């Protein structure tokens, strides 16, 4: 029997981890994601199934909710992204579909995205070189979509002090990381120059 070894969005076998003064950039590669879109007129039905089976309230605009290892954030009207720990042999999309049934359309998004976690006191400041979002005004549980390195990305505020996640298209993972690295270096050098 053949086996398939996964690689990260950056093309490596292990996630990237980088340390800067007051900032850690860590690639996240252990989460599965599925998008859920409610079928016509089935919003309430979907909400009750999710609430009953997952003990999760579907988040409103610009919000994400977490229940243990399980999380969900709003992506568009009647549309959410769910995430949970990744299991190579067990498909999250199948599990979710079993829960939501015909109340929603479910699409596996696990490998469509790359994800970087920013932590440390400089994790707010770095955004001033990344995107137009006023990250310091975000509160825990907020998510926004923005452009980073020409690319549509989600920014999640996990902890106001200080943990954020950037979720971007997987094919441009190298460019998103480049933007993070360049911004971290700029932040550090500008501080020194001042």
């Amino acid at each position, binding site marked *: 029997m*053949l086996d398939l070894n996964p*690689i990260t969005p950056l093309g490596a076998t292990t996630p990237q981890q980088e340390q800067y003064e007051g900032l850690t950039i860590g690639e996240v590669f252990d989460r599965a994601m599925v998008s859920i879109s409610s079928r*016509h007129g089935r919003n309430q039905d979907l909400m009750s199934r999710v609430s009953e089976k997952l003990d999760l309230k579907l988040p409103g605009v610009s919000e994400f909710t977490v229940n243990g290892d399980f999380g969900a954030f709003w992506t568009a009207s009647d549309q959410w992204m769910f995430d949970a720990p990744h299991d190579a042999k067990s498909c999250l999309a199948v599990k979710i579909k079993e829960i939501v049934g015909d109340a929603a359309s479910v699409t596996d998004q696990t490998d469509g995205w790359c994800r970087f976690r920013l932590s440390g006191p400089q994790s707010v400041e770095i955004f001033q070189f990344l995107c137009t979002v006023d990250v310091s005004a975000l509160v825990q549980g907020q998510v926004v979509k923005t452009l980073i390195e020409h690319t549509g990305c989600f920014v999640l505020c996990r902890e106001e002090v200080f943990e954020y996640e950037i979720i971007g298209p997987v094919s441009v993972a190298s460019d998103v990381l480049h933007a993070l690295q360049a911004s971290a270096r700029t932040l550090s050098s500008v501080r020194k120059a001042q």
Partner: protein
Amino acid sequence: MTQLNRLNGGLISRGSPLNFTFDGKEYAGYQGDTLASALLANGVRLMGRSFKYHRPRGVIASGSEEPNALVELRTRGRQEPNTRATVTELFGGLSARSQNRFPSLKHDFMAINDRLSNFLSAGFYYKTFMWPAPLWEKLYEPIIRKAAGLGSVSLDPDPDTYEHGYLHCDLLIVGSGPAGLAAALTAARAGARVVLAEEDFEMGGRLIAESSSFVNQSGAEWVAGVLEELGALPNVRLMKRATVHGAYDHGTYGVVERVADHLAEPPAGTPRQIHWRIYARKAVLCAGATERPIAFENNDRPGIMLAGAVRAYVNRWAAAPAQTVAVFTNNDDGHRTAKDLLAKDVNVSAVIDVRHDAPDVDGAELFKGAQVVDSTGKLGLESVKLRLSNGEIRTIDCGALAVSGGWNPNVHLTCHQRGRPIWDDEIAAFVPDTKLPVGLSVAGAANGVFSTAAALKTGMKTAKKALLDLDIQAPTVALPEAEDSAMNLKPFWFVKEGRGRAWLDYQNDVTVKDVRLAHQEGYKSPEHLKRYTTLGMATDQGKTANVLGLAVMSEMTGASIPETGTTIFRPPYTPIALGTLAGSTTGRHLAPTRKTPSHVWAQELGAEFVEAGNWLRARWFKKPGEKTWQETVNREVTTVRSRVGLCDVSTLGKIDVQGTDAAEFLNKVYANAFAKLPVGKTRYGLMLREDGIVYDDGTAARLAEDHFVVTTTTANAVLVYRNMEFARQCLWPELDVQLISTTEAWAQYAVAGPRSRDLLRKIVDAEFDISNEAFPFMACGEITVCGGFKARLFRISFSGELAYEIAVPRRYGDALIRALMAAGEEFGVAPYGTEALDVLRIEKGHAIGNELNGTTTALNLGLGKMVNRKKDCIGQVLSTREELADPEGLRLVGFKPVNRTDKIVGGAHLMNKDEPTDIKNDQGYITSAGFSATLGHSIAIGFLKNGSGRIGELVRAVNPLQESEIEVEVVSAHFVDPEGDRLRA
């Protein structure tokens, strides 16, 4: 190196001496100097030559309004022309050069222009070079270009980096003079998020240039205390060397921060400049005011300066402009200059005041009601000629003349959204319109409030009001006791005496005479005046010149200045380097680079990559011994036709379409029918624009009754998704359908060739039967591979061979391609790139972007029957337009060269054999061409009028661009296996 005009005091660091060069000569200055202050301290008044007349010029101002002292800084890639010496912070080793002169600043050959000034008046270009017209491009323009302009660029690449940044605040304060600092203190103590931006390298504005702003302390002392408090607050961001260059929509401001311009070169990793976009809920403009000169004959000699600038040089930089200075004024501010000069023991030879009731001056001779009517001095001012109130002429020796004609509020940012300044008689200047950019208010001198006390007060009040609008209560700040004197200005714009030239716009060499000429020739509107004379069009945007120009025009028309009108200011406030606007978006970071799942593997194989949209795709995989890319591509094509090849097709767009109405939805967006496509089947489809033109093709695979996967071309993935979303949300919102792009999520490979099934049987888990019977052509299904990994299999073929596309979650894409290569070794597997892919599809007559070029219909493509007339779909109705449905119209056919060694060129136009080569006889064109390894000669497909009815005919493929033509035979577009037996095998 003696700094002969260096005075005592000032805010320079005498413990940090700096050496620099100007025109190759070494000078000394101090930390805290500007290039201009250091040159003045060294007795250098001559700093440049004027734009048109090459007149000797020196510094006039002390800030960014400087029109004259433009220099070239640094060398090679860092060489920067037209830099104002007044805002160039001195650093050790600075190399500056004067510009617009040859061979030297003192001896400039082009100074002959000054003698020819009668011929070079305003509008001389338009009048002189009108005829003969052909000479403009060949003779006139090159000569004028060579003669005009100021500095030069090195053409070496700029070694520095630039960055973009984004900030958010409650209150942006533009300028750090008394109003700005009072506003900042008020907002900061209220806990608001404050950004204070100052274009200078020191905060304080006029407070650090004046000697008597406060009663009990110096301006510098108060500024230092305020900055200490502000600097300690986490809610305040102090940005010096930061110019707010524009007020844009919705409270957005553009700011250029010069991070490393004050250093010889930026430290490693440090951007030279950052372009900030600041999102401010409210903003207060505290940009101060710009002093204006009084025009008189020969008022442009080095040494003639603005009086406020002279005070700044003396007080802040401890640099006297000359050993002996005279003052020419129409207000009390000029007297302040005389006082400060005297306090520094500089000889003031005269104070010439146009007012008959001017206040007395201690320590200098005062001429009330007098005017300066002329000046002398070859390369610098030596004396001024006065007309006294009694008519007598008097000559006064002086090396510098400090001129004050009053102050113009810096209203620039208030105009950036079409605000038009309004005239204030009290100060004889334009003040901001009441219609300001949203969220912006104005305080201090920028609003026409000139005393320090009033500026402080309005700064605080304006900030409080702005914050109140944000529901932030700000405390009242205790302000220090400050000077509160009136300027007592008597409007006086230019001296009417004399027949020579009196300059208004120093940078563009516009004189009073030029404005008179403009009036004489009918260019009376300020907009016409500006364009006819170039008044206010230089890099300084006429900061010191515009109002004077209007005053002269007003004199000519007999109307008042406000009746004459004004021009408004556009961004940027000061010039911005193009590199700063670009930021880090240069070179390979101009756009994102999308990498395929097999990228690392392809790199290991030494693949040559090509950009397809933003994707990098393998173009071919060269093997050792292959000398040309054609050799490699031929091998790859042959491998697919005879054995099995692998190609990464992950870049094709993939859209997940789900919902109870998914089939009906696809039936509407595709031209052909999809409603009855069985589960487990794939169908090729065409998408039309509303006007009936084909814009994309692809497949839709039905994985379940309510679940399809649509594929699109690589180039149109986003467009198709966007159009489908539009259709879903706006055209048929009643349909229950949900769309999600999954392009990125899957690694998808084409496995093509007669041995493809054999290969896949080693990969696909045994429980899935992929025999021809169980999994026929156009089948699709969800399977597992390699022992349980989920995958999708589609039996579709772009090459025309027995072929599949297999998809796995992207993370396993690298492993799968390696597994496929290993499993296929016994079948002679080889990877193939986009070039071979192209040849394979041309051999099969399949269309891509070359054929779906935005002008072609399904009928043109030979796919007319695919547009189903029994159902409604986008583009169906308009595709029946008479011209589009022409039975004799263009049809996609194939072409073979009659002489098989000839090469058909893509883009060649088709002409009948015996007709001339012209548009009238054009029969069509070649869209795609390549060398067919299968057939052993060049082949092509293209559009030919009535093409399908002309099979076997010979036509000419002409290529006028390369002056070649060949004879080609019209054939079927299906060169290989026209019956499709192979792909169904």
